[in-house]
């Protein structure tokens, strides 16, 4: 069934098709339409879920954790300040190995107050133990929502799917909504690995001494590593049903390229058109889209970037005191590439707080990247006017 819908509603439809059992959420722009549509779906009976309208995002995540340890499929959505408020409970969900799924609509952090997009909200949660998947189109948002439950429940880790404020959340695109019976085949009712059960009582999350804590984190890390393969398998099955797949990393026109752009989120779509233009002019430019940020697709990135002359990483985020976060992570991944194959990496910081990243901006970045032998600093800020 094809429907024209905004990105936020693509999430809601993904949740509906996934037959989520417990929803708990708190409003925040630009996420709110996700949970508004879910309210309608629950109210009209099309989604027979328990919907807990909590008094804060901290409680939203706590309630999802409760629903999850009771054995059910749970979902919430948030943005920026709401995600930051959840921080403590993000660790709880991941460390407790609970497959909660959350949509985060990327919104820049205040102050000053802003509702527009950048990635600092989700990337600040990097080390909480959540799988993070960044989306480019509304179709991808729908597909990723459904896949997220499958992935989360297979490896017992929570998954955050991420979409850009406004550029996706409030922008309408046609979405092929997979039929219910197809989704049901792909994603049967959750059968929890462990749960609260009065006929088999256990304690969860108790005090753990230094002699066992490391092993728990090790198992969590092993699950993260496993998630790379599981995501591939999840995509295989989804592709067999729908014909669509995205990859943890997507290579676009990278063959024989001497310069590669690296992007995530909606900047990718703009970058595709720039690559097409440059290719039409005979220039060997390609694009890598990074969908999966955690677990980090280190091997794929090394494979694609090793041997390329120049790499321009476009970061709609900043780690203050360091650089763009994707650039820094990729730089460190490339350390293990033999020096002769190690590309020259240029890290561009741009588009913060929703500033437009136009084809011209990206085109200028390509020119800049070609103009010097080495970047003059770790973080190259684009378009700063003081």
């Amino acid at each position, binding site marked *: 069934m094809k429907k024209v819908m905004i990105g936020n509603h693509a999430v809601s439809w993904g949740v509906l098709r996934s037959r989520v059992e417990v929803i708990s959420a708190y409003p925040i722009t630009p996420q709110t339409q996700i949970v508004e549509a879910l309210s309608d779906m629950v109210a009209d009976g099309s989604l027979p879920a328990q919907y807990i309208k909590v008094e804060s995002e901290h*409680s939203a995540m*706590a309630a999802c954790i409760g629903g999850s340890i009771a054995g059910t499929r749970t979902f919430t959505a948030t943005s920026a300040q709401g995600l930051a408020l959840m921080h403590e409970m993000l660790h*709880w969900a991941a460390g407790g190995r609970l497959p909660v799924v959350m949509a985060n609509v990327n919104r820049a952090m205040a102050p000053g107050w802003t509702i527009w997009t950048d990635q600092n909200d989700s990337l600040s949660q990097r080390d909480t133990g959540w799988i993070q998947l960044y989306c480019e189109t509304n179709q991808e948002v729908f597909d990723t929502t459904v896949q997220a439950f499958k992935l989360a429940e297979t490896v017992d880790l929570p998954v955050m799917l991420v979409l850009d404020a406004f550029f996706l959340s409030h922008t309408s695109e046609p979405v092929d909504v997979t039929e219910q019976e197809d989704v049901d085949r792909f994603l049967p009712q959750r059968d929890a690995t462990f749960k609260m059960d009065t006929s088999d*009582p256990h304690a969860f999350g108790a*005090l753990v001494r230094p002699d066992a804590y490391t092993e728990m984190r090790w198992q969590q890390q092993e699950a993260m590593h496993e998630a790379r393969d599981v995501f591939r398998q999840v995509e295989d099955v989804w592709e067999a049903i729908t014909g669509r797949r995205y990859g943890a990393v997507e290579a676009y026109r990278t063959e024989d390229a001497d310069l590669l752009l690296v992007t995530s989120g909606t900047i990718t779509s703009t970058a595709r058109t720039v690559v097409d233009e440059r290719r039409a002019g005979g220039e060997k430019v390609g694009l890598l889209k990074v969908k999966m940020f955690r677990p980090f697709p280190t091997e794929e990135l090394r494979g694609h970037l090793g041997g390329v002359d120049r790499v321009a990483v476009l970061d709609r985020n900043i780690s203050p005191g360091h650089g763009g976060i994707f650039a820094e992570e990729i730089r460190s991944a490339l350390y293990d590439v033999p020096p002769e194959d190690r590309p020259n990496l240029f890290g561009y910081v741009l588009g913060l707080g929703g500033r437009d990243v136009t084809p011209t901006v990206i085109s200028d970045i390509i020119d800049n990247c070609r103009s010097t032998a080495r970047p003059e600093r770790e973080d190259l800020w684009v378009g700063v006017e003081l």
Partner: protein
Amino acid sequence: MSQTIIKQHIPRDDLLASGHLACPGCAAPIAMNLVLKALGPETMVVLPACCWSIIAGPWPQSSLRVPLFHTAFETGAAVASGIKAGLVARGDTETTVISWAGDGGTFDIGLQALSGAAERNEDFIYICYDNEAYMNTGVQRSSATPWGAWTTTTPTNDPEHQPKKDIMAIMAAHRIPYAATASVAYPVDLVEKVKKARTIRGTRFLHILAPCPPGWKTQNDETIDLARMAVERRVFPLMEVENGGTWRFTVDHPGGSIEEYIRRQARFKHLTDRQVEIIQDEVDARWGILSNRVEHGT
């Protein structure tokens, strides 16, 4: 109280195992044991950070014979809401979910989540065992700490300035179907209240005074005596409130001087006789307010 009355009211089976990790003389495990006896094995416990996080035992052990979920300090009511929703989503409307928190997790950091859940009238029992300070972290003041008390953040030369927060009035203002106070010195009253709460749907709240020998600076064998004295002398009256409007005392409170109650606790030993009189005046004034609530519903 005769043995037969106790046998009639209090189930034999313990759902709290021996070997728990409470200090000697702690009221908190007594309270838990009584509550679980009243609720039975079809019960799930949510436990935000508090002394009970330790009492329950470290991984891979548990001193409870029912499912137990340890959670963050301020999330008892929210996690309980989620567990109940999950059970209902799978068709189980019968299992009782309780959130078991200290006074800090209830009066202070967890109050927002508790208020949210109570306002939504979530279907679980919230139980606060109140030892009148943050004991897990070494006796710091909470908003349940009584006026004049020593804690490690209210030293004897600058003791607690504020009277205890009126949590029962706060919960009653949410118009939840049932709220009650209880005491480990009145086990039948406590168990009957829990049994009654179990039959009601919606948010139920139980506030149990739980003396703590190291935090109150008392002897291990004084716990029950002090808990009883707190009730008799009207420091901690036993009551219940239905739908936020109908207040009722559930035992006799003969009253009398609170002096012995205060003087037996070394956390008050710095207080002058005049200051003890101030506490007495406060207790008398509160009794007047509570009697008024019982008579007039406000």
